[in-house]
């Protein structure tokens, strides 16, 4: 039996089609995922992301324990700002990718993927030992709602007195949305301007309604996980389980910059990651552009002169660009943009070209 978010009834009322995602029953789309995708690019979309995990770390050594537990430099994050980072195991494999918000000097919020919620919560609970800090998993009582798209600021601005113009990308601020306390963050996973609202689970339906009403006239539509995936793919953002796995370190994923060796002290995975950083990783994440309309998809083989040199991790016909796009891991020799490769699409060999990521950036 899948878990349901506190917005499940709202989604049912909207006629959502549900899918099981990491043990949660989540809206995959409401009507058309392509229309939802387009709305986020051109107007705005409203997402329920309550399946994601919210783990609070507080105390005198909150910064120190996160510097030890994660690969990033969390001490260096100013209160009110957020950072994209990762949590690795001792061998340097990626347990999850995270967004960590520093809410105050001694208070951080770690947001983990739904599929890795327990792994991350358990790892943090274990790694806090010996530090003067407390790890508190509040995922059960926290809902997460995202408003993403060029009209997101106009929509949210109508229902909150928070100074949105002053709220930078990757920053957060406590705010009030028509009487409801929220943590308002300018973050997202779509490649657009947008906001994520951390709210009490019980208040989520009311806040969803407030945002829906504020979105009237601004083209806001409810948006499901299907369009979230094509949006993040166009934006070149990795998905755990596709581009990121426990078998890979951040370096293979082309995200080695998140590993901060210069921070003082040891951190979990440091020595393994230092070794990995010195070696040339055999395969590297790249972007691919196809012709025609058939998309390379997860697991499809990439070929050069008939020899397998890589594998697709995510792919789709890009709704915004109109041609197939994909991310893949390929041998180092084939990573230069402009390199012509072939992909085996269910027995048909189709040409693809290596291109720089992201595929799409907002103007």
């Amino acid at each position, binding site marked *: 039996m899948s878990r349901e978010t506190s917005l499940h009834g709202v989604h049912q009322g909207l006629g959502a*089609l549900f899918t099981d995602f990491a043990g949660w029953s989540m809206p995959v789309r409401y009507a058309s*995922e*392509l229309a939802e995708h387009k709305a986020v690019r051109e107007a705005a979309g409203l997402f329920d992301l309550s399946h994601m995990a919210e783990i609070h770390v507080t105390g005198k050594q909150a910064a120190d324990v996160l510097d030890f537990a994660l690969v990033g430099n969390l001490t260096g994050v100013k209160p009110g700002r957020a950072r994209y980072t990762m949590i690795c195991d001792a061998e340097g494999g990626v347990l999850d990718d995270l967004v960590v918000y520093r809410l105050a000097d001694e208070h951080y919020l770690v947001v983990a993927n739904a599929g890795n919620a327990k792994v991350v919560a358990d790892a943090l609970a274990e790694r806090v030992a010996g530090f003067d800090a407390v790890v508190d998993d509040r995922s059960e009582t926290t809902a997460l709602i995202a408003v993403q798209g060029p009209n997101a600021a106009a929509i949210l601005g109508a229902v909150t007195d928070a100074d949105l113009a002053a709220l930078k990308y990757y920053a957060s601020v406590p705010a009030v949305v028509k009487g409801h306390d929220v943590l308002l963050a300018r973050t997202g996973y779509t490649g657009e301007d947008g906001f994520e609202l951390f709210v009490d689970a019980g208040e989520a339906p009311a806040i969803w309604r407030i945002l829906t009403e504020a979105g009237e006239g601004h083209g806001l539509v409810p948006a499901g996980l*299907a369009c979230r995936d094509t949006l993040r793919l166009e934006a070149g953002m990795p998905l755990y389980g596709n581009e990121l796995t426990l078998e890979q370190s951040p370096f293979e994923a082309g995200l080695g910059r998140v590993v901060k060796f210069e921070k003082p002290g040891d951190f979990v995975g440091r020595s393994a990651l230092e070794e990995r950083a010195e070696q040339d990783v055999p395969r590297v994440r790249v972007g691919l552009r196809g012709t025609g*309309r*058939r998309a390379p998809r997860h697991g499809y083989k990439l070929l050069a002169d008939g020899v397998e040199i890589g594998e697709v991790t995510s792919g*789709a*016909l890009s*709704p915004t660009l109109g041609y197939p796009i994909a991310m893949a891991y390929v041998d180092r020799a084939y990573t230069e943009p402009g390199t012509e490769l072939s992909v085996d699409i269910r027995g048909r060999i189709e040409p693809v070209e290596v291109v720089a990521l992201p595929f799409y950036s907002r103007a």
Partner: protein
Amino acid sequence: MSIPENLQYTKEHEWLSVEDGVATVGITAFAAESLGDIVFVQLPDAGSTITAGEVFGEVESTKSVSELYAPVSGEVVEVNGTTSDTPEVINSDPYTEGWLLKVRLSGDVPELLDAAAYAAHTQEN
């Protein structure tokens, strides 16, 4: 979900109507809805033959790929070109504008499901 009474159905979610020995073939609204927005359809050329139970093409949606199984055997006499230019017609109008193939039957029509049986089949899935 609409299931027209006048059509026959396969368990693989194709529909069929037969007139003067020519079968019109499409996929059901249930199939189209399950796939999501259809963005690509691969169909055989007119003049080729298809064989009952075998794959004759595929449909791709944003998230998935599904093979199309021939409900009957015969020669393809017409292909709905609209579906290659605007595959979304299969979502919006699967039973009329979104048909896929017309096939001149080379044998008997295998036993298929009527609307009620197909409705029951989709409930099970």
